[in-house]
């Protein structure tokens, strides 16, 4: 076993694993900013970027919510309605979680 391999096999290996995970995660975090600072923003690209935040949200939650069936869908609807009416995010969140808890308690 050479020096490097035996170093990795020591408890320092965990430190190296965490450092490696930290490095690649940080690269993911900065990559979008670095790339966009080098792209010339045409009107077309700007339209695409405007659609991005909502697209990220829907792409993230839709499969998860559908996987969890109709209680999750009703809870999500309740959360969105409460938020649309009150515009207070914590109210929307509580409405959604409360609805889900009630459905599960009786379902």
């Amino acid at each position: 076993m050479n020096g490097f391999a035996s170093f990795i096999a020591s408890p320092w290996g965990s430190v190296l694993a965490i450092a490696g995970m930290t490095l690649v995660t940080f690269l993911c975090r900065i990559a979008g900013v670095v790339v966009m600072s080098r792209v010339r923003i045409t009107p077309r690209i700007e339209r695409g970027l405007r659609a991005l935040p909502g697209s990220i949200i829907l792409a993230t939650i839709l499969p998860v919510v559908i996987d969890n069936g109709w209680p999750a869908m009703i809870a999500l609807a309740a959360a969105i309605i409460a938020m649309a009416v009150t515009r207070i995010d914590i109210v929307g969140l509580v409405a959604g979680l409360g609805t889900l808890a009630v459905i599960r308690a009786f379902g």
Partner: protein
Amino acid sequence: MTLMPPALRPHFSYSGLRHGARAALPAFPGFIMFALAFGTAAAQKGLSLGETLGLSGFVYAGASQMVGLEIWQQVWTPATILTIMTVTAVVNARMIMLGATLQPWLKHEPLPRTALNLFLLTEAGWLIGTRYHTEGGRDVGVLLGCALILWLVWLVATFAGFFAGALVPEPRRFGLDLVMPIFFGVMLVPLWKGFKPALPWLVAGLVSLIVHALVPGYLFIIAGALAGVVAGMLIE
């Protein structure tokens, strides 16, 4: 906030830091639940407190921390280190898009502060920052204040989970297993600007469903979001 802030120029203030820390409150339940679960799982897996807090404090990305536990090793080799780095990168690649949306807001910031802001970038903090930005806010302090407090909450809850995980009640009973998707849905509302601007979102949602059905892992997020961008570029 009914009045539009006077300055639409990006800036940074310490009152913004406090504002951001307060605005982060709705993200606390999701952060606490997830970090408690992570701390508990890490302790069960036999990680030391230092390793557990190291993952939460430096990697600071819940899904990849959980997946990382699955392939955690007692004795590491270069191959297993490379594997865990690759898996982490794949799970966290979706963050590239969060950064892309923030770039116009951050482009005049000093580099060290942007590095810190991005080091602390999470979906929840991004959601709160994006809402603030959509409503006309440009104080980068809000983004950083939100990020700092969420990082602290994450660390404290990881610590609590590591020692008291067995005492945590079943999250399903309170609907807390779905707290993140519901929070995401809530934060979609302030972005709503009418049906037509939301058409790309629909495309994003449909594509993510299809990819999720066909491909395992987290690829559906990136695929859906990119489809939304393309749809946004094509729709006049």
